[in-house]
């Protein structure tokens, strides 16, 4: 046995190899650290420049070029064909400055957006508006300036074939509000302090959880459904049966949302149909009325045994909700030149925007940079 030789070999190994290992290990570790540090700075740089395109930041060039191009695509990305349409427009805007061409090019994608947004809506609209739209189109050919104006916004219109009936119902609800609901709410406000009323509202919102949860599921918005579920559990257990809203606290911050079945039908692509004002229930549409029926069955209050008790609870809920936004209807009415039309338009716009937001949500995530 060559003990010495073996020893020397081991010595050699311990002297050289482990040394080498450790030294190379050190080098490797240092290299890793440098790499990590470097990648952190690279990451930080990209975060600052590209990550927050919506927010002005110290590096103007990259972020603003992102800002001017990306959100546009983000907004219309629901249709790949539209992205292609956006490009010539942005090019035209940055490229040539001749106003007329710009307006003309500008018009195209936005008009497309308006028509593709809701195929059923235009189909279902009453005989009057299409006629108008037709005449507008032929007229506006001569005037590019006006064409541009009209094309800037997606016009949300709702057909109103039952206008005489709706106006009558509007009047009825108006009187109901000023003669019955408002005096009751005033008295209620005198007796019950605001924090308590907010708690009552929280309680009813929490109770309506099934409507939102089922709607989110039907919209294939699973993260939204999970958030709703989380809110419900947290607010029911730690929020004393829903009286408080710990989910919205800074620590948890689970986003509040609303979803209902009418909205779900909208997400499926069903247009609003026509405007419909229900007595007591207020503004609605053909589509949302169908949704209301479903919502009724998903709302636990509907199952309180005698029917009148269930209605009583809903009436109380309405009184309480109104108590927290008393004056809103008055100011809408005061600001309006034709309150009926103002309310109709506000309803149509409000519902439409919610649905568009939801449609955007259920799609695959957008390219980075825009949140």
């Amino acid at each position, binding site marked *: 046995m060559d003990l010495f030789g073996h020893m020397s070999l081991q010595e050699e190994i311990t002297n050289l190899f482990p040394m080498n290992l450790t030294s190379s290990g050190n080098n490797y570790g240092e290299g890793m650290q440098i790499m990590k540090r470097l990648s952190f700075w690279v990451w930080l740089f990209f975060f600052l420049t590209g990550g927050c395109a919506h927010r002005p930041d110290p590096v103007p*060039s990259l972020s*603003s070029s992102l800002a001017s191009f990306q959100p546009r695509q983000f907004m219309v990305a629901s249709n790949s064909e539209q992205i292609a349409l956006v490009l010539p427009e942005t090019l035209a805007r940055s490229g040539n400055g001749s106003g007329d061409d710009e307006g003309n090019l500008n018009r195209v994608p936005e008009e497309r957006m308006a028509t593709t947004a809701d195929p059923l809506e235009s189909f279902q609209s009453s005989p009057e508006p299409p006629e108008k739209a037709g005449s507008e189109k032929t007229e506006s050919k001569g005037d590019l300036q006006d064409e541009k104006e009209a094309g800037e*916004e997606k016009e949300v219109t709702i057909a109103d074939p039952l206008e005489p009936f709706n106006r009558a119902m509007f009047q009825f609800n108006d009187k109901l509000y000023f003669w019955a609901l408002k005096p009751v709410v005033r008295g209620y406000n005198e007796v019950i302090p605001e924090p308590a009323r907010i708690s009552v509202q929280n309680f009813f919102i929490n109770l309506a959880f099934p409507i939102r949860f089922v709607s989110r599921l039907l919209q294939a918005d699973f993260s939204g459904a999970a958030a709703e579920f989380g809110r419900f559990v947290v607010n029911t257990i730690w929020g004393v049966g829903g009286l408080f809203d710990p989910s919205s606290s800074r620590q948890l911050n689970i986003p509040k949302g609303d979803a209902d079945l009418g909205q779900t039908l909208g997400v499926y692509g069903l247009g609003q149909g026509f405007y419909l004002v229900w007595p007591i229930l207020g503004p609605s549409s053909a589509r949302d009325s169908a949704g209301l029926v479903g919502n009724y069955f998903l709302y636990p209050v509907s199952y309180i045994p005698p029917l009148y008790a269930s209605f009583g609870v809903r009436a109380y809920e309405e009184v309480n909700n109104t108590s927290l936004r008393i004056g809103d209807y008055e100011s809408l009415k005061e600001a309006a030149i034709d309150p009926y039309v103002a309310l109709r338009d506000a309803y149509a716009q409000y519902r439409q*925007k919610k649905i568009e937001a939801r449609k955007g949500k259920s799609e695959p995530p957008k390219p980075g940079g825009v949140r």
Partner: protein
Amino acid sequence: MKRQFAGLSMLLLFLLVLPVYAGAPLDTVQADVNKVLDVLRDKTLNNEMKKEKLRVLYGQMFDEGELSRRSLGLNWRKLNPAQQQEFIHLYREVLEKAYIDKILAYTNEKIVFTKETMLSTDQAEVQTKIITSSKEIPIFYRVILKDGAWKVYDVFVENVSLAMNYRSQFNSLLAKNTPEQLLEILRKKVKGQ
């Protein structure tokens, strides 16, 4: 050669991009809103003085012509220039009457500026929220770049566009009335109440 080209294109990029950043939309709106809040918080002023100051700020913050045009849509062209001027004037008064009390009722609610989205090279949306005790109200400002300044041309309250809401009303009125009659309705609206 390649490097030169790269340098040139970088320069071009900067040149193209800089005018857009003449004043970032969000910063402009935030500064304007803060000016309004300063007036509202100023306890040395009475309501009349506040109104006077707010009118001046409104003129600085809003592009009234643009807002009026958008509120009339295609019908804008049906008004002759004199009528258009009167419309702008009356519309301002209608808006003032409708919203001044709400604005003066401000009691230190928190206003948060959440984000800015460029809609095109000269238009942007600035999203804000008013947080009250019982709810959050989203308010979005649409701004347009004109002569190097960002000016508000539309306001979305809870996703409802002010200009579009009025446009629907003006459209329905102008379907049955002449522009002159519309102005008369507005005059009455301003005088009455």
